[in-house]
């Protein structure tokens, strides 16, 4: 049990590092090509909505059934890829409230859609 606990933590570390790195790369690439203000809102929406969709899939898809895969891909990659601190800072920029509201609505729907995809694969639907 202790061993499993620690391996789970290590997998979350690796996945979270990878997810954060991907978010950084995407944000930086968008900033270089689009300029700062558009890049911040666009990268936030992209990472958070796709990350929520992915976590929904991870939650029920049979491929991610094991504790290890859930730790790496769920809490790790999907958790590290998405961000709330970025949203919190973004809220202090002009006209961010409408974009944030849309992002939350899309994130909710994306997770639910991911759950449906995962459940369909698992034969639960």
């Amino acid at each position, binding site marked *: 049990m202790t061993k499993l606990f620690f391996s*789970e*933590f290590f997998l*979350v*570390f*690796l*996945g*979270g*590092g*990878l*997810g*954060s*790195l991907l*978010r*950084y*790369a995407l*944000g*930086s690439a968008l900033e*270089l090509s689009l300029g700062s203000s558009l890049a911040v809102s666009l990268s936030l929406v992209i*990472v*958070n909505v796709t*990350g*929520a969709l*992915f*976590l*929904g899939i991870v*939650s029920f898809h049979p491929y991610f059934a094991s504790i290890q895969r859930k*730790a790496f891909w769920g*809490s*790790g990659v*999907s*958790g*590290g*890829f*998405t*961000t*709330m*601190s*970025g*949203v*919190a*800072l973004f*809220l*202090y920029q002009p006209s961010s409230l409408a974009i*944030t509201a849309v992002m*939350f609505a899309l*994130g*909710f729907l*994306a*997770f*639910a859609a991911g*759950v449906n995809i995962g459940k369909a694969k698992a034969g639960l639907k």
Partner: protein
Amino acid sequence: MSLSEIFNPLLLLGVFVAGGLGSMLRFAISKLNGFWPWGILIANIVGSFFAGWAVIYFETNLTWLAILVVGLAGGISTFSAWAAGTVQLVARDRPLAATLYTIVTLILSSTAAYVGLLLG
């Protein structure tokens, strides 16, 4: 920042390690889960506070900004787990709790970031 500065290998390693550590912290706190996903709420508040603080404290240092704000704070905080918690609350016929959880997450995270900005 130029392309070579942004994708400097050491900086990428820093973002990876910081994001990994932040995610481990979030994973540890996320075990707190009851009426609401308390652990995730706390992780999002802590991450937002830290992001606000670091944005000011390391204002001129783009390397530390990437490692601490994008990596550590971004790793601690999460959006996907908010979505998961909210969808699960709605699925359990608790739409009011889901709405409140969302509003509280937004208000407390942005307030925490603001306090961080003031203290940084």
